[in-house]
């Protein structure tokens, strides 16, 4: 017992004494789906590409790694066989228990997770978590959709009725309502993060029901964007830029801007500001203002009036003077969810437990 303690002390001393690691830092990126999915994984891959350009950094990428024991083995493999010292396992479900297990096993490796789940009281020091307020992008999408719709009916293809998704659906609705008070949004939950067949069916069903602008929150909105283009309606993107899939139908899109975030991480790791044994900003979040999210370039059918309104709201967001969720706000069952006079800042934890759909959304959370 004593000997083990001494040994680990010695090892720790050696670790501290060893100079800041020289040139090559190996950073591993792990994706749950294909890195060219026009969606969640591509957004992270584009961020990885930015890191790749930094001198003295080597990146590793592995795609389609399920949220099972498999991802633990992939993390270990990157560490053991390829010498990775920083890992970005990017899928939400990788965190608990997979990253936490590996972080305990490899205390000298940094694990940075997308999802914003870090809890300083419970989680090890070599773990960090980040996330972005992409509902700001969906709010701006909503403004574009509110201007573009003729039927007043908007459609939203969503994966599961979980807080993150509901927040996006609600932000989209509120954005549309800001400029088009009569607009409604019909939401269909496919039940799955990646199920192109159901997503295509849902898109067609929404269009047949009269929706003339679609948007989505699934891992890859590819088929939804393509369906909108084929059927001659409009679409707002999500996760990454899908304009190439719908040259005329695309209005704008809510995109992640992981390049900024990953470069900041890489720079701080290289300078030694972030290290496994230090205290650093374990939990970071940001929106438009912080450069965590951005908007796609406008498509051809966005009117100058719509552009002006979107830019005006965006400018307020950039100045930190805009709140999406403020009272009085009712859900679609007539219950007051935010009382009059209350304004929720983006950082408010209440928003992370969202369980309702706001008035104007046609759909059911199933709870």
């Amino acid at each position, binding site marked *: 017992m004593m000997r083990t303690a001494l040994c680990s002390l010695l090892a720790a001393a050696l670790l501290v004494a060893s100079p800041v690691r020289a040139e090559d830092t190996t950073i591993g990126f792990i994706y749950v789906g294909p890195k060219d999915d026009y969606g969640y994984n591509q957004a992270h891959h584009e961020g990885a590409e930015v890191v790749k350009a930094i001198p003295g950094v080597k990146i590793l990428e592995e795609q389609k790694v399920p949220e099972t*024991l498999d991802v633990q083995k992939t993390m270990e493999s990157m560490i053991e066989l390829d010498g990775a010292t920083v890992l970005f396992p990017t899928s939400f479900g990788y965190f608990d228990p997979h990253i936490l297990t590996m972080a305990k096993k490899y205390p000298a490796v940094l694990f940075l997770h997308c999802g914003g789940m870090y809890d300083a009281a419970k989680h090890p020091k070599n773990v960090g978590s980040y996330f972005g307020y992409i509902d700001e992008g969906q709010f701006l999408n909503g403004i574009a959709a509110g201007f573009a719709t003729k039927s007043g009916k908007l459609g939203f293809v969503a994966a599961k009725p979980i807080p993150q998704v509901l927040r996006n659906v609600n932000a989209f609705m509120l954005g549309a309502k800001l400029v088009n008070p009569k607009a409604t949004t019909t939401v269909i939950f496919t039940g799955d993060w990646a199920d192109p067949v159901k997503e295509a069916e849902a898109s067609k069903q929404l269009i047949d029901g009269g929706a003339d602008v679609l948007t989505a929150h699934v891992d890859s909105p590819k088929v939804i964007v393509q369906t909108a283009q084929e059927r001659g309606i409009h679409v707002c993107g999500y996760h990454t830029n899908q304009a190439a899939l719908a040259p005329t139908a695309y209005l704008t899109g809510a995109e992640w801007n992981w390049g900024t975030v990953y470069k900041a991480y890489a720079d701080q790791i290289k300078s030694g500001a972030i290290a496994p044994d230090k205290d650093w900003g374990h939990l970071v979040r940001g929106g438009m203002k912080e450069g965590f999210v951005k908007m796609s370039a406008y498509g051809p059918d966005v009117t100058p009036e719509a552009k002006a309104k979107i830019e005006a709201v965006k400018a307020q967001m950039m100045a930190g003077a805009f709140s999406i969720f403020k009272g009085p706000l009712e859900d679609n069952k007539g219950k007051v969810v935010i009382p009059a006079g209350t304004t929720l800042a983006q950082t408010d934890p209440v928003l992370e437990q969202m369980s309702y759909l706001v008035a104007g959304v046609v759909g059911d959370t199933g709870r």
Partner: protein
Amino acid sequence: MATQGGTAMIAAPPPSVHLAPAEDGASAVASLRAALAPALRAFGLQSAVFLATLVIFGVFLLIIAGKNPLAVYADMWKGSFGTRFSQGATLAKAAPLMLTALCTALPARLGMVVIGNEGALLLGGLTGVVVAQLFGPDMPYVTIPAMLLGGGLAGGIWIALAGALRQFRGVNETISSLLLYYIGLALFNFCVEDLLRDPTSLNKPSTVPIGEANMIGAIQGLPAWFPEMHWGLVIGVVLCLVAAVVMDRSTFGFAARVVGGNVKAARLQGLPITAIVLITCLLAGAAAGMAGVVEMAVAEGKANASLAAGLGFSGILVAFVARQNPLAIIPVAIVFGGITASGGLVQRRHELPDATVDVFTGILFILVLASEVFANRGRQS
């Protein structure tokens, strides 16, 4: 309903070898040699198949992907069996496949083709969570076996339903077990996202956790050079061995093979066909159900969408390549696990798509199945 002629072919090796009465001592050596000969022939055949796969896949790499096959093979070796860590990863991937493969292999002895393994796996994992909740965290030595039994029972009942539909309603078990998978998945999702959902699991709906104490952990006290492995592997290997003994050495197994060989003859012999079908399906589903418990309790410690990772479907493939032989499932699952485990390294170091190793698996397994046809033809002529 009579057994389909086509499926009887893949059911079992000719039963003659094991049924022969005990020989006298003098011919024991000769009989040993006779018994080993097919094994040696099989080994030679499999080696040839493996070499052929290396050549075909190498050409594929060279011409289609423009990579040096030798460099890719070196990393495939490194990522599957070449290091202690890789061996551990390989075994971790192989463990659940051994169990899910049994779900197809056991009914195959009866000439049945069951493919609903994934449904039994999901319901098994879910039941494991429920059992852990009932028993609490205080006595893992009771709780973990109870979880395995409960999960096994749930999976077993699920596949036995397919057997019952076949015996009582004449429904093809391949179709019904596949459809039962869809029902099982829907039931699983309903329980995870609604009925049994942990209210604190917000963005990834999950059941309440089984608790740290009830997790199935790594095997402790192995020598340092030994690859890391968890108890799920032991369960997989033991059940494959038990299945081999039951199916090849017991009267039950003999009866099952008679049913699989000729159902009319079995009926004339007065064998309880329905009971044999139901029991076999129950055992088969139990193996897949236990796979679900193991997968749930090794990593997540709760049931959620991660459990539906397709291990049940991979098990079908393993069973067919192992020719529905429980003993052969062990090495086939390890080879399959190894190839899958090497996929990451191949992706990272050679910038090849993740499907590359699937192509390798595809070529290998098609050649294995094809070689059987050639081997049989050679024997008959």
